[in-house]
């Protein structure tokens, strides 16, 4: 029997099996639902960013109006003097965004566990309370959103199971297998071609779903690479399950036995192994209650401010060598005030060190997880999906680093200009706005 004939026969088998058709339909519907969930999150985040940017512009306009009117600041805040770098930079509203990738449509990943916008001030840190995730029902977060990656990682193996479970075994049970053996000569290749039919069917359905997803957030064009990377990962994942299931159905005798083995393997790979590794990682490296960070923010900072003046001076000069020779550095009256206003720079350094050690601890935890990928392929594929759709832990780690860079830049500009005794006018304010808001 020619391979092409086997393909057509398999199509007939498939089209006469309502259970398989319903399964494929449900899978497709879940895929569409998942893609729309991703697209909705993308739209929500984009609109939130637009709304924040609008507020930023309004605030900026308000501040510019003080310069235009020759006022020092808001009337009800008499202590504000916008001609000084301290207050002028204070009044530059700055946000750092984790702009969603259009590829988020394929996998929400860990996007809902972190905030995606952060107001930057001289007292900010990437561990601030406003870095908390968007308001959401914790029970929904726990169960997880039905996104496209969920459909692929968890439902695709189940669909493949439903489509393949009775291949060969149904013929064995009905007593046709010997007849087929005579016609096809090689049962393994006959089974292989039948399996390939379903693999192709799923591949085509997934490709169509991905094209539909691409149309939701305009992926093709700028993110075509990501699209093909994801599709390649998807095919690799499909191949993994096909090999596993093919071995089972090739060796199995009855449909029930095949089903038992296939679902057993799925349960072990999707639940038992990831769950065990999760628990192991959690025991080995418990949740950090951030005591070091709390201590740094409270006690350690107090210790800094209690240091002798000369020590504080030295610390500031090391951080910003250009201020050492400034006029302010030689004027004791100005210097005291400038030093007071530069306190955030020392606090920032302290917090940075603490956060660095916390991030290292988290990275060690991630290394533990990565080292188990060979045993936990589901987590490997899930994290690959998250990584390509820019919603993985690493993407948010990178975002936190960008926040830190933005804080550093803000502090540096402010401190240097305070010590240089810069008088801020409208032009300088606009310059601050431009520099501090460049992403």
């Amino acid at each position, binding site marked *: 029997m020619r391979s092409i004939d086997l393909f057509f026969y398999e199509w007939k088998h498939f089209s006469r099996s309502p259970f398989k058709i319903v399964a494929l339909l449900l899978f497709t519907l879940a895929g569409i*639902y998942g893609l729309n969930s991703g697209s909705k999150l993308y739209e929500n985040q984009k609109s939130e960013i637009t709304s*924040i940017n609008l507020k930023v512009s309004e605030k900026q306009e308000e501040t510019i109006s003080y310069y235009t009117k020759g006022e020092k600041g808001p009337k009800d805040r008499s202590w504000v003097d916008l001609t000084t770098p301290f207050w002028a930079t204070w009044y530059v509203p700055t946000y750092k965004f984790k702009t969603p990738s259009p590829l988020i449509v394929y996998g929400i990943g860990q996007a809902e566990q972190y905030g995606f916008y952060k107001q930057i001030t001289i007292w900010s840190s990437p561990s601030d309370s406003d870095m908390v995730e968007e308001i959401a029902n914790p*029970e929904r977060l726990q169960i997880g959103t*039905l996104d496209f990656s969920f459909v692929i990682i968890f439902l695709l193996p189940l669909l493949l199971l439903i489509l393949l479970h009775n291949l060969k075994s149904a013929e064995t049970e009905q007593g046709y297998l010997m007849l087929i053996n005579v016609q096809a000569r090689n049962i393994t290749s006959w089974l292989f071609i039948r399996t390939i039919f379903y693999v192709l069917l799923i591949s085509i359905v997934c490709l169509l779903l991905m094209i539909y997803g691409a149309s939701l957030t305009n992926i093709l064009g700028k993110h075509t690479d990501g699209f093909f990377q994801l599709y390649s990962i998807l095919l690799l994942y499909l191949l993994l399950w096909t090999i596993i299931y093919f071995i089972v159905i090739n060796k199995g005798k009855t449909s*029930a036995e095949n089903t038992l083995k296939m*679902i057993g393997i799925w349960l072990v790979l999707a639940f038992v192994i*990831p769950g065990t590794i999760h628990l192991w990682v959690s025991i080995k490296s418990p*949740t950090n209650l951030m005591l070091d960070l709390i201590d740094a923010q409270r006690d350690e900072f107090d210790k800094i401010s209690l240091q002798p003046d000369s020590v504080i001076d030295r610390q500031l000069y090391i951080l910003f060598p250009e201020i050492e020779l400034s006029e302010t550095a030689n004027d004791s009256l100005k210097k005291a005030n400038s030093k007071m206003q530069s306190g955030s720079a020392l606090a920032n350094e302290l917090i940075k060190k603490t956060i660095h050690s916390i991030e290292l601890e988290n990275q060690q935890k991630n290394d533990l997880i990565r080292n188990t990928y060979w045993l936990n392929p589901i987590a490997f594929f*899930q994290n690959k999906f998250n990584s390509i759709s820019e919603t*993985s832990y690493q993407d948010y780690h990178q975002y936190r680093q960008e926040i830190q860079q933005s804080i550093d830049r803000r502090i540096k500009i402010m401190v240097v200009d305070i010590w240089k005794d810069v008088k801020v006018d409208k032009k300088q304010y606009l310059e601050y706005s431009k520099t501090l808001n460049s992403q």
Partner: protein
Amino acid sequence: MWEIIKKEWLLLFRSNLFLGVSLGFILILILSVYLGSYENQRKKASYENAKNEMRSQWENLKDMNPHGAAHFGTYVFKPSNSLSGLDEGVGAITGNVLRLEGHVQNEILYSEASQMQSVSRFGKLKSSLLLQYLLPILLVFLAFGSINSEKQSGRLKLLIMQGAGTTKLVLAKTLSIWLYGLGLLVLVVLTHSLLNIQDFNADVFVRTSLFLLVYALYYFIITGLTIFFSTQTHNATIALTFMLGLWILWTIFLPNIFISSVEKWHMLPSRNEMKTAMKEDRSKGIDGHNPSDDREDEFKKSILKKYNVDSLSQLPVNFDGLVMQADEEYGNKVWDKHFGNLRETLALQKQTLQYGGIINPFISLQNTSKGFMASDNLHHQAYLMQAENYRRVFIKTLNDKHAFGGSKTGDWDWKPSNDFFKSVPDFDYKPTSVWSIFSSYLLDLFFLGFWAFAVSACLIFRTKQIEIL
């Protein structure tokens, strides 16, 4: 009937495959309970350490003005309860550290999930993972062929000729497999109770009993339905395929779809929207740190009138403390309004999700499992409320000391002795009693009961006329 059950058990125990699978399952169940309890103990130790450190920092405060101390604030940590060893619920998703300070109600931060990359979509290998996802599948595998195998071997006819009615036979088969599931469930609960005997009290007993009840009902539904389909089909594989399809639909597909849809039907505000609205409302009240505020001026006049004096310097109390407390109380009202709305929406979402139990008893099982194990959102919200109530008492104590402790208005250098800080009570979290939230789960219990009743009715009334050949 008992004879049939005994015979069924005898048959099961003669199977080496059954014994092997059971042994493996028992081992993994015990391991999950042990590791769950161990993780919990480690969490408790870490919580105690953090709590003690924060308290010690607070008790060692010196040379601090009460309002400075309100800004210094304190931190509370979400304690881990021993029951979460069975079902962790939202524990890994929600934060663990909450800063309590003046002027502002912070959000709980630093969840476990945010500290590492994705590792398991369905959570850790806690008992609930095995009891909710794996054990029902095992029951389906044990039950799907039980009637058909009797039919095919001709034993069904023989049994009926010997006087065993079909209904009695079907019920006995259901009970024999259900009892197996129940046995494993009891094993889990007993092992967990023994490992956590030090935490055992009346509330834990009631919660554990309810946990046992809801799983027992769910296992009966699963076993009964599988047996029922087994009686209605000629081929055992069809019954198996149908039950697996149903399991996938109930366990993997629908919970996700339901909860995602519920959140779309009852929308929560975005953080930015809520913050803006709160800021707007807050701006209508007193700003304790802005002396030029008009409302503060009005408040000042009312205080001067109350004490019958002309100026702040003549007041026998410190006006700064009073205005800070007035600011705080206004802020509390704003918080109550906005977070009250948020909690209402969350409650509405929960209730809508509970109605999903009509077509999917797994949703009722999940709700009650984490609910009775004190690890659902309801318990999380109760914790946050207790923390907020404590924050109010904490800040009021500091503001009262500032106002009535003997200092005069404007005297920001005044500092109470360290004994005062030591006298401020620490946050003492009182676990939510099961009876105070029991009514929230009645709908879930009703649906589980309804399903169990419907399955019983099917087994009793729809299997009388089954084909015996």
